[in-house]
């Protein structure tokens, strides 16, 4: 598995797509941060709860990390490179698992980069605006952990979707329409979708109780989102094992 992981990390380093998509994601995250900080009123107080809402906004850019996972996994089928991988590892599933882990690591790194952005740009800016931070005790740990987990798991979920669909466009459209249109529409009809859906789960990860009414506890949200990622990766593997490779 470590050999396959090494191969996957080398693969993602040696294509421009990775760097372009991560660059755009980081730029969007920075943009969102700048907008929020510029409209933030002076001399107010920021608490743990506000941190969750802030992360929720920034996580819009994580869609691109999800897309990165999709593009990478479905791209193997598009470019036919999946065949060479399966020739080396004919049991196939370790290839998909290694890719999911590799992209989870990329997602984590990206999540860490957004946090770094917050420290380097956000804190001095807040200080200049005379904003008081009341992140008492350990309250910041869950949203920060959630921020990293969400980015990492989203990338792995993308790998699962890409493997499942094999077609980049179909996987991308399905993911974006589900997250941006179908789920928000269903939330209006059913509270359960708001709580247990992909969007609601992310709110639980950040501890964002402002955007959603009935948010799961942090640990439940983390487990559920990891479950979604595992489900799609598992479904992708199940189909990959059964299909002929052309």
């Amino acid at each position, binding site marked *: 598995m470590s050999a396959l992981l090494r191969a996957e990390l080398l*693969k993602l380093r040696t294509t421009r797509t990775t760097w372009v998509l991560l660059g755009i994601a980081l730029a969007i995250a920075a943009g969102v941060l700048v907008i929020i900080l510029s409209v933030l009123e002076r001399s107010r107080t920021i608490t743990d709860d506000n941190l969750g809402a802030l992360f929720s906004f920034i996580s819009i850019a994580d869609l691109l990390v999800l897309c990165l996972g999709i593009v990478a996994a479905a791209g193997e089928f598009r470019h036919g*490179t999946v*065949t*060479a*991988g*399966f*020739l*080396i590892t004919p049991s196939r599933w370790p290839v998909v698992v290694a890719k999911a882990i590799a992209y989870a690591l990329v997602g984590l790194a990206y999540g860490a980069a957004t946090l770094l952005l917050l420290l380097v740009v956000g804190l001095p800016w807040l200080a200049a605006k005379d904003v008081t931070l009341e992140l008492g005790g350990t309250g910041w740990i869950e949203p920060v952990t959630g921020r990293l987990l969400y980015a990492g798991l989203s990338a792995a979920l993308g790998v699962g979707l890409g493997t499942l669909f094999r077609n980049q466009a179909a996987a991308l459209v399905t993911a974006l329409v589900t997250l941006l249109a179908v789920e928000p529409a269903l939330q209006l009809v059913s509270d359960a979708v708001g709580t247990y859906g992909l969007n609601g789960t992310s709110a639980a990860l950040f501890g964002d109780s402002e955007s959603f009414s009935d948010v799961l506890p942090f640990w439940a949200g983390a487990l559920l989102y990891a479950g979604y990622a595992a489900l799609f990766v598992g479904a992708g593997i199940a189909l990959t094992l059964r299909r002929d*490779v052309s």
Partner: protein
Amino acid sequence: MSAAVTVESLTKRFGQTTAVEDLSFEVPEGKVVGFLGPNGAGKTTTLRALLGLVAPSSGRAVIAGRLYRELADPAREVGAVLENARFHPGRSGRNHLLVLAAAAVVPDARVDEVLAMVGLSDDAGRRVGGYSLGMRQRLSLAAALLGDPRVLVLDEPANGLDPQGIRWLRDVLRSLAGEGRAVLVSSHVLAEIAQTVDDVVVIGRGKLLAQAPVGELTRRASAGVRARTPDPTKLAEVLRAEGAAVEAGHDGTLLIRGIDPARVGELAASSGIVLQELTQLGATLEDVFLELTGDSSLAPAGDQLRGS
């Protein structure tokens, strides 16, 4: 000792289409076997089944007695060049090989070795998107050689190669065989590989048409004799009594097989038949190939076959 490659009663159906039907043949250790057939004959499907990429509907294809997925370290046992090998266009040739080397746990130094073997060292840093078809075939062969495998499976490796490329490929096949590797190489153009292979397996419409050493096919190819006589009926009768196969040619001649021209002359003389022409037909391996696969709807264009 088991053969390097054994295909046993292999059948593969895609929906209503039967791509390969009850196909059996072997590639002995250390031999080069040409896998021939017109386009669409089922060669690629057979090779993909052998490589574990396609699940057979029935029967099996094994390497040294084991299914591909049962091989402990496939990259070191089998090297494969697949038809129209595909690469990520944005990755350089060298990086493509480095990725495969990492997955197969082959040292990075081996990457530069195989690049040199296929003559790609100078272009290895360029993005594959800018490679010619011939360069892609070379890169694909380099990938197959990464694990220094004993068995090579090459699907139409000559596709897209120019005449120099085809000569290069022949030399490579010869040198690989000289190192004692078993090679199964498919082609729809017999001339590309005839000089390099020990045995040929010919298939058409998914079925085995012939498996024989090249020499035997050549003998079969030169067996025809054409005779012209004012009395073809009598000559045919005499020859058939001697066990020859005789057909009437389209221009009043006789097409005779299974008997050499000298014997035809003797028989004609002893029966008092006048011979106006007696010709040993210069049939080639291509003619045998065409005859075996002789379904006009499936046979490739004649100019390709007679090209060399």
